[in-house]
């Protein structure tokens, strides 16, 4: 929507866990066709994906439960193909075709 390039997209799966699925239609797995480049023409990164998810996939008005100050909120782990995104470059990681990105909120109950 809103002027995003409609041309090429990257097919990926995005998973939500630990309660975050409630913000995304109560669905744990989403198939997403992410634009290959962000609005400024740079390759799509995880940072762009997070912004894209907020604008296009979130069905809950409480965006602040997912992002704070334009970054993923504290207490949410981001896993790129089942590895902590810190092993992959965090927000700067460039999304590859068929990547699986998992957002999981850390739990504290017991």
């Amino acid at each position, binding site marked *: 929507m809103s002027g995003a390039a409609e041309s090429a997209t990257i097919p990926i799966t995005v998973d939500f*866990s630990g309660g975050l699925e409630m913000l995304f239609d109560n669905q*744990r797995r989403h198939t997403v066709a992410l634009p290959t480049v962000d609005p400024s023409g740079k390759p799509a990164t995880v940072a762009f994906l997070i912004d894209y998810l907020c604008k296009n996939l979130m069905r809950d008005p*409480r965006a602040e439960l997912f992002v704070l100050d334009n970054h993923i909120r*504290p207490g949410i782990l981001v896993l790129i193909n089942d590895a902590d995104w810190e092993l992959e470059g965090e927000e700067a990681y460039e999304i590859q075709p068929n990547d699986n990105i998992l957002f999981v909120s850390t739990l*504290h109950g*017991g």
Partner: protein
Amino acid sequence: ANGSGRRLTDDEFERYSRQMIVPGMGKEGQLRLINSRVLIIGAGGLGCPAAQYIAGAGVGTIGIIDGDVVEASNLHRQVGHSTSRIGMKKVDSLIAHLKALNPLPTYVPYPFRLTPQNAADIISKYDLILDCTDNPVTRYLISDVCVLVCKPLVTAAAIQKSGQLTVLNCPPTPQGLVDGKYAPCYRCCFRKPPPPSSMVSCGEAGIMGPVVGMMGVAQAGEAIKILASALHIPAEAGGGDSSNTERNLQQPTLLIYTYDLESAVGPYTFRALKMGGRKRNCFACGENSTLTLEGIKAGTPDYVQFCSAPAPAVSL
């Protein structure tokens, strides 16, 4: 802690025979368990099942710390308590159950909350710590003290239909040692707590019994293997070896259990997520860390404030 100079009694042989004949356990593994000391922090939904299997396996000394009393609404998941013990301190109730199951271990009750003031004294008396608590304030405190007094930590959490578990600081490595590959602490993996508004307790959000039960039993499983196989002894000190990567310790796995009320167990029920190693800039274990036991006792860091950073006034 290798049990040399001690033989198994006939009682022990009979009681533990079925696990001693498992390949890899043996008399050596059993003696290591008998000579081990495990602290279970929290006698609730995680602590009850974890304690049953820790006690059953014959860990020699089992400390349990919890300040709460048993309530009726605990009993669908806190299977080490009972209706007749409603109102009793959870620690005493659980130890009563464990003694009936296995009278051989020494049980040490701590019927109060873990605090920055008492944490180091208690934790330093044990070989391995199970974090079975229900709040981030205590979770960060436990991990920080485990770093400072060099104890491995098996941490788990559960709420509603989700559970998580990971093995941290194992083998334990002194604060500031970040060259090479060392196991991370809780803060390395979970740098900041969520804003309080996004958190809910099991009391507010609910919890399915088997979800927290699975995580508690899994904690006992990890603790038993660490102690029986001496995975917490660094390679240099003997007992371990250098193939830490294959042991899932340096870059530990975060196990995620997702319980879906509307479908049977399936491909996404369990996920194994690879966490990073120890972080150079970690507040607790990193190379410039200023964290000390004296500081913690004196109120630095302020765990309550750390876990109540301002955040939007809505709840997940």
